[in-house]
């Protein structure tokens, strides 16, 4: 069991700069998820760890060993592919024991290990079937067994659940987390599904356009996004554009495009120098009067409240959707932009409101993230 370290990784597809300088550490036994939209480079990073792509610059270290230029077959990684990649001409047992055969494990032991791992993934009786005879979920379990049976130094998962339906996805992600934790194998997991990432990971690295936006625990990434991109990609949000109109010690006032006024506590010392450098994602930008800012609010952290007096927007109800535990209210703000509020109390009353009626929306300060040029204002 080892830790994986990626240093200043750059990967090109011909002239396209797909991965633009990534630094990452995956601790021993940790599940790290690369989360991002399609085309962001997350699969490319994973494939370079597996050895299918050679980076133009940077190093990949597995433990003390530099594996950047080690052939894929010698890296001792177990990989689970998006489309399972089970060999259709082999039985399930032959699929699972293939890696052991390559490692010259004796026949009896191969069989024993295959049976053990197949029972771990609840496929005891299926050893003699071929992949075509199994369902999608079972095939993915075989793929998991095949990757784990070799006791890999590192487990690599390339969107392994994206071809399955919702129920199975939830079931299998629990199973994958359970098994990898039990075996203590260091894991890199790629997905574009934020809820999957939140559920399965110890650490999430949010990737956008070949760069890391934020690395943190699921809690940190969800509740304390560093960038506008992370805030929008993780969770369901409204985004309002505005301009800083007043800046005092302890107070920021923002006027939205719809003409409403929102105020926030200013934690910055207005007399401090701006130290943020371009491309530096960690340092908070310094605000000035006239700055354009974006405010992001979660659907479920804001309220319809007729009595609210501060940080209030007005909106017209356009649609009400009853979702069982809540009602999703879609509104238009003054400037015509769309705004969504998830209401989870007094559902009957909310459902009784007529379309077209005007309501007050309360945005508590704690429900808002303030961004300037993609960076969080703290």
């Amino acid at each position, binding site marked *: 069991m080892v830790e994986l370290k990626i240093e200043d990784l750059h990967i090109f597809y011909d002239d396209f700069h797909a991965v633009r300088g990534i630094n990452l550490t995956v601790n021993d036994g940790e599940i790290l998820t690369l989360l991002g939209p399609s085309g962001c480079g997350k699969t490319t990073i994973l494939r370079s760890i597996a050895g*299918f792509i050679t980076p133009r610059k940077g190093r990949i270290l597995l433990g003390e060993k530099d594996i950047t230029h080690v052939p894929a077959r010698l890296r001792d990684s177990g990989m689970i592919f998006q489309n399972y990649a089970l*060999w259709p*001409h082999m039985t399930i047992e032959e699929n699972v024991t293939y890696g052991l055969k*390559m490692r010259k494990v004796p026949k009896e032991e191969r069989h024993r290990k295959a049976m053990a791992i197949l029972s771990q993934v609840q496929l005891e009786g299926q050893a003699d079937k071929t992949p075509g005879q199994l369902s999608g979920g079972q095939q993915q379990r075989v793929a998991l067994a*095949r990757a784990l049976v070799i006791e890999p130094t590192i487990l690599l998962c390339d969107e392994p659940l994206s*071809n399955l339906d919702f129920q199975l996805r939830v079931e299998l992600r629990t199973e994958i987390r359970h098994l990898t934790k039990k075996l203590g194998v260091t894991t890199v997991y790629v997905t574009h599904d934020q809820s999957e990432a939140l559920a399965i990971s110890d650490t999430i690295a949010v990737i956008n356009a070949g760069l890391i936006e934020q690395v943190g625990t699921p809690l940190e990434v969800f509740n304390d996004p560093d960038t506008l991109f992370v805030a929008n990609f993780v969770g369901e949000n409204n985004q309002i554009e505005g301009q800083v109109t007043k800046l005092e010690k302890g107070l920021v006032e923002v006027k939205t495009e719809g003409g409403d006024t929102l105020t926030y506590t200013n934690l910055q010392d207005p007399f401090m120098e701006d130290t943020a450098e371009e491309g530096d994602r960690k340092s908070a930008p310094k605000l000035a009067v006239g700055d354009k800012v974006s405010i992001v609010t979660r659907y479920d952290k804001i309220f319809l409240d007729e009595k609210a007096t501060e940080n209030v927007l007005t909106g017209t109800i356009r649609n009400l959707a009853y979702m069982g535990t809540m009602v999703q209210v879609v509104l238009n703000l003054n400037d015509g932009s769309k705004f969504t509020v998830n209401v989870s109390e007094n559902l009957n009353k909310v459902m009784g409101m007529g379309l077209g009626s005007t309501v007050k929306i309360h945005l508590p300060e704690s429900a808002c993230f303030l961004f300037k040029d993609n960076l969080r204002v703290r």
Partner: protein
Amino acid sequence: MKRYMHKFMQDPLSWTIIPIITLFFTVFLILPLSFTMYAAFVHNGELNLSAFGTIFNTKKFWDPFPEINDSNFYIQVIAPGDGITTIRIRGLDYGIFLNTIIIGIATTLVSLTLGLTTAFFMARLEFRGKTILSGLLLIPLVIPPFVSGIGYNALLGPSGLLNERFFIPVFGIRLLFQGIVAIVIVQSLHYFTLIYLNIYSSLMNNDPSLEEAAENMGADRLTVARSVTLPLAMPGIASGSILVLILAMEDLGTPIIFANSGDTVAAKTITFYIMQNFFLGENTSEINQITAILGAFLLLFALIGFYAIRKYVSLKQYSMVSKGRSGKFRTVKLGKIGHVLIYVYFTVLLLVSTIPHWGVIIISSTKPQVWPLEFSSENYNKLFDFENGFGQFIYNTIVYSFTATVLIVILATLAGYVANRKKFWGQTLFDTLVTIPIAIPGVVLGIGYFRMFGNSEGFSIGDLFFTLNPIVAPSVLLVISYTIRKFPFTVRAVYAGLQQTDEVLEESAINLGASKSRVLWEIIIPLIIMNIIGGALVSLVYNMSEVSTTLILVSDTSNGTITWKMAQETGKIAELAAMGVFLMVLQVISLLVTNVLLKNRADAISGI
């Protein structure tokens, strides 16, 4: 009948097509073949099995342990005093029956070796000039074996250019390939491309992540190839090989060329023997029983092969297992030495496999027996001369092939649509009926036609409808035989197109009130028009170079085609070569258009 009427009312289009096509194929495929089979067992109206004994007791037909002597040898070196050493490589004569099987197997093995190697190089290596090479590799396909033999003889024959101007002056050696060996060489140079195309498309259609998974599990390149790539390409390897086996055994064009240039062993193949001996006399449609038996065996081999492809290969079609394919194949980028080696391989391969092409081009466009070569257009001038030249034959070829192709387009589009979209009892049988002609030996169908429609002292259908009588007017039956024999190419292309077209598109039109025939015209045909044209062009190409039924059915000059004329006058090599070049040009144009239309779906060209 009542049930049929009921079905008919529901879907008049399909229930018109199914009986018509079935009837057409029954009358012009199943019945003639049955007549051949009948003639194999019945002689003078009585069951006669003694001819079977004759075949397996006569050394001419069956000679598993041939004696090695002056005319029967693998390799012979003659060094007379004049300083020219003649090396003859021939292969033993095992009798007509075994020769044919040996030729089939040997051609398949040679083609498989070349095709597999080439496919692997093209699919898994990265080197400069690959795109150009993939085009060049189609060249061997555009020469029918018939023309191939002529071209080969022009360069490597006893007085071929290579011998006269290169081997003899430089090495003092005359190198001659004869008999079985010569036929296998000429066939392999053509057929390896078919296997290459089949395997190449298999290799490219596999899911790249299957190989990556093996590599990830620790397999080196050789192990990946052996344990994953090859087994997954097996359907392509098997279908390509069986197809070549069938085609090599039923090839008539190559043996004719060698036999007519005096090679007695080359003459001893089943097809050539049938062609020479089936005809018993002017006033009978009775056919020589021995030829009917040999034909029946040929048919049997072909049917077994066809069945094997259908059963075994479709069982092993893996492509549907994994959900979608991801990424590109990991190819090996060649270095400098690798580039040199790969260029050497392809240069040699292309040089050798285009020997026939160079042969026909050189011999047709230069003055005979003049060195250095001097251009002459004489042979080409004769091409379009109706009086003394080939004008009549070119005209006939074009009329027959185009008429047949038009029929094919209409019928195959309808048949392909019904076979793919309609569920009905006997569907598999129907599908088999319209695709099996690809495996049916032309000579066997030809003698079946002859027996069924020719003159006879007893009853013959030719007496009733004498436009179908090949002796009175072969052209009608010829067009029908072309239509039947080259039907599969178009029907497969249509089928492939329909498989890629979602049925929902039709359902939504029907939902909006369109009738089935409207849907066919306004939705389906526009969507698969490229496949139809592509398939039709392939059918056309093969029609133009059809040899075997033509030779059996046509007996007079006025109805002859290019290939018929070529078989009649094998002595006039240069003029024949000019005609061969003309055929090749037509084929190249058609294939280029097909390639553009069907893009990478090249397997439609050769697929069963």
